[in-house]
């Protein structure tokens, strides 16, 4: 059961993959889709593993992703 979730601002992403690499539970992967700037943004591949720790948010140099504790319904 996921303890958290992430919010991604797709078009701000520059595909650096910091979030993918440093997520402690490997929730993310780079998508094969392109955003409007031509980068591959991340997408959630293992939502149940997300703790909402927000490490992705701290790493993202483009302010394109952040983690939130709790469920999205809260």
């Amino acid at each position, binding site marked *: 059961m996921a303890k958290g979730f992430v*919010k991604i*601002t797709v078009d*701000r992403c*520059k*595909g*650096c*993959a*910091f979030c993918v*690499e*440093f997520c402690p539970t490997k929730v993310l992967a780079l998508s094969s889709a392109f955003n409007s700037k031509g*980068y591959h943004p991340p997408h959630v591949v293992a939502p149940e593993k997300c703790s909402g720790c*927000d*490490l992705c*948010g*701290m*790493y*993202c*140099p*483009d*302010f394109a992703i*952040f983690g*939130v504790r709790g469920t999205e319904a*809260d």
Partner: protein
Amino acid sequence: MSAVCIENPVEQFLRMDRIPHIWCPGCGIGTTVNCFARALIESKADLQKVAVVSGIGCTGRVAGYTKLDSFHTTHGRAIPFATGLKLANPSLQVVVYSGDGDLFAIGGNHMIHAARRNVDLKVVCVNNLVYAMTGGQTGPATPDHVITATAPYGTYEPAFNLPQLVEAAGACYVARWTTFHVRQLARSMAEMFARRGFCFVEVLSPCPTLYQRRNKMGDGLDAMKAYKELSKTRHGAPTSEVALSRAGEIVVGKFVDRQRPDYGDLMRLQLSETLGDRYAEPEACTCG
């Protein structure tokens, strides 16, 4: 329960009308800004009283993106500007946010004097090992035997050991992290905000477009993985032992944390001792 619009915690500190920013993919400056935002939140800073002063360069652009009273000054001179700002208005928390070239080459003299005086300033030095904005030229922190725009056959100048220099000049708080160490960096920044005196944190950051590319070191992620692998936390390590090299160990941690009266204290103490009742203490020099 009503729907709450959840916002990225960094956005309250950003001039969102200027986002997206100019920094390259894989550049670590934005990462340091996240840490800065978290540190401001954690230290419960009165945001109205936080002022950011920067110099010129990629890191210097931070001042333009932060939604605080911010000053984008001249190359190398953020520290003396910040000194005037702080002395005229001691209630401000003055943060200097600039790069390795700006703070240690053209700004080197001001760095050592502000540290000597222990002016109450919090200096964040993002060290990407080159002058990035102008195209990746050699700087005083560039390791030897690397290619830069002005050293096409490889550098051969010894680099400064930034923490050692700043400690020797008199800083009371000296730390180094990398953009991999996001939690530790945010904690160091919060520690700096909570204390007085000249505080300095060096943050190693990738410059994928210039430094990494010219030296075939991969992209920003490759640099971050290298930081993770090569860094070793040694709190309290003697700063003489933390010099960086092209591909060697990166010593991180809090190296110096000592108490020294800051410049404002020293000034007030001396003048009130000498002048007694005649001393008119300047709470703030503000004009009418």
